[in-house]
């Protein structure tokens, strides 16, 4: 299954790009989070972040569908 990951803020730095297609074998947001941490260990520090899927914030047990857009939004603090 393929999803598109769109990353903002420091998450974009970790991925080293804003958008990337991720081929993955799990079913839930929690699985995807685990896979991202394995590929990009710095994501471990963002372990508490919520994910949005398409236009909605979701919980870790949310089941992903093929071609979903998963959005990673770390807090930014600048003013």
């Amino acid at each position: 299954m393929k999803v598109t990951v769109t990353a903002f803020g420091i998450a974009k730095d970790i991925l080293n790009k804003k958008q990337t297609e991720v081929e993955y074998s799990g079913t839930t947001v929690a699985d995807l989070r685990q896979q991202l941490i394995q590929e990009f260990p710095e994501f471990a520090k963002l372990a508490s972040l919520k994910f949005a899927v398409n236009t909605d914030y979701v919980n870790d047990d949310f089941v992903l569908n093929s071609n979903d857009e998963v959005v990673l939004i770390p807090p930014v603090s600048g003013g």
Partner: protein
Amino acid sequence: MTKEDQLRYSRQTIIPEFGEAGQEKLLASSVLVIGAGGLGAPILQYLTAAGIGRIGIVDFDEVSISNLQRQVLFNTHELGKSKAQTSKQKLSALNPATEFDVHELAINATNAMDLIEPYDLVVDGSDNLATRYLVNDACFLLNKPLIYGAIFRFEGQVSVFNALENGKRGPNYRDLFPTPPPPEMVPSCSEGGVIGVLPGIIGAMMASEAIKVLCQMGTTLSGKLFIFDALDFSTHTLNVPASADNPLSGKHPSITELIDYEAFCMGQVEDKAQAEVTVHQLQHMLEEGNVTLIDVREDYEYEIANLGGELIPLNKVLSRSEEIPTDGNVVVMCKMGGRSQKAIDLLKSKGYKNLKNLKGGIMAWRAEIDPELQSY
């Protein structure tokens, strides 16, 4: 409204959805703006122009040269002056009818409730995570609507918290970001940078949402997070539900009064403490001569002010790591402590175990030990 007010506001009172009724509401409203910086400038300019009756300005800082690429309320003749005082002076000329309360202080858990309580609405243009959680919690506890915005490089976020709709308060910051990541994952403008015009866009959007909440007009971003990326001009509007686990507004609230937000945002505080030295500890080490000091800032920053450390800019620490001892006392420093922490994390991947971060960087040294150092 006076005849002059009718003229002054005629371009907006002519709009059917706003009208004279909208203007009357703004004239009778009060707003507290936290931070007269990059976001604060457009927030303050446009709320003043719109005719808000009373505006409180919270800022303890002074104008510095690196502010001027985005803080368009100030100019080169005002370097070193109080941001809050200078703002009031400029804004009073723009709209003499608006009353301004100058709060020249840092908002904290001790003063926040008293500061916020007298105002109808709060707009948060602050520049650090601890203040964002503090302001969020205080606004929730006081039942005040809060306009949120934050910026990083080319990206901005906007939302509306605690807004009353159908008798229910909307989600808040802890629904968006339940717990803070470690500090090095949340760069400030000085550590991460920001394109100067971005706070212009995001701050004006925040002022617009404030006006809509005060006039109960249109549909606000309550329950939504708006993300703007100026680099590719893309927008995302995400739905953010109120979370049952929210420690403030969820089913089983655990936060019923303000907490220690610095500690909360430092995360694993004990870990940190072992890996950090304060400026006073560093002063002692330097006097004893038993420390290697590594400065990871850029050349030009080093020229402005330095503590005699060895200069290895952040982007060179890996390629020049043989210059950094793998044993003995090594303290890594930068301007405020963010980049040096990043350098330490990078070097840890090479096996370094003896590195300590200078807490607060050279700015903390200036604040606590040597005020003669040039600020920047």
